[in-house]
């Protein structure tokens, strides 16, 4: 009788253990997948935040171009403008694509890059627009994040009228 019960119990727990092993295997797969996904999404959000930040390159360029009064020289990825500083003295500013950085020059002196180190500017293009009243510049650039393994490229576009030229 005792032996019988013992045997019964043993058989039952073996099936139980098999069931548990299967259940834990499934749970482990689910949990590990979720953890991998979370690591990936952490990276993804940080790539996105880099890309959002790169919009500030465009903001800086538009602000400077808007205040300018004339185009000194323009080529596809090199733009020099005549503008005024805060004391109303003439000065020149220049945006140029150097490697994967957008450099900003004031009066021929390099003041720094407009992009942060983890942003790569892959393409920068300026187009001059002449209107009956003045000039405007169409800007476009493509950026990618150095953290991004899939090398996604996001494009930013803007056009700015030189208000100082009116």
């Amino acid at each position, binding site marked *: 009788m005792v032996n019988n019960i013992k045997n019964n119990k043993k058989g039952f*727990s073996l099936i139980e253990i098999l069931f548990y092993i299967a259940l834990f295997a499934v749970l482990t797969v689910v949990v590990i997948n979720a953890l991998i996904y979370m690591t990936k999404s952490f990276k993804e*959000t940080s790539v996105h*935040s880099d890309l959002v930040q790169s919009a500030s390159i465009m903001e800086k360029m*538009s602000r400077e171009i808007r205040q300018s009064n004339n185009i000194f020289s323009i080529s596809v990825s090199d733009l020099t403008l005549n503008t005024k500083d805060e004391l109303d003295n003439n000065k020149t500013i220049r945006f140029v694509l150097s490697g994967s950085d957008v450099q900003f020059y004031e009066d021929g002196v390099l003041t720094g890059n407009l992009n942060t180190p983890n942003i790569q500017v892959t393409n920068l293009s300026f187009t001059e*627009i002449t209107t009956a009243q003045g000039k405007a510049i169409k800007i476009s650039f493509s950026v990618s994040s150095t953290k991004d393994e899939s090398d996604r490229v996001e494009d*930013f576009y803007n056009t700015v*009228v030189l208000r100082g030229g009116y």
Partner: protein
Amino acid sequence: MKLKGNKKYNTQRGSLMVEIIVASAIITMVVIAASVVAQKAVSLSRQSVHQAQAALLLEEGAESVRIVRDNAWSNISSLTAATDYYISFSGGTWVISTTPNQVGIFTRKITFSPAYRDGSQNLSASGTLDSQTSLVSVIVSWTEGGQAVSKTLQFYITDLFS
């Protein structure tokens, strides 16, 4: 546990199993919940990239209307109110046309409506029609995870140069 009887040992192991199952269920639920949050975070951060791009496209739309105005006011005054217009870059300048176009995932349309002035010459919703001013709306729309999203920029443009 070893010191206890066989029967007791078995029941204890049984309840231990239940505990493990409950614990692993809780852990699984927590991890799944966290991954749902992560998924939402990714989609929101992707949305913010699109928002930043759309904001600049709106600005470009506004500037292009200004360029068209700078060329001749008749370019603006000849347009029909409440019609969808689209801008395209051709011949070295921005041109307003009714042909739809897309910039990547974004659709940018521009509508013009008449502007009115009240008795003291201020812009208002009704009053006398000011043919030298136009109310411009630039609308950038795109789809975000199957849902349509749009951003609008509204401003007045006036005939400054003629």
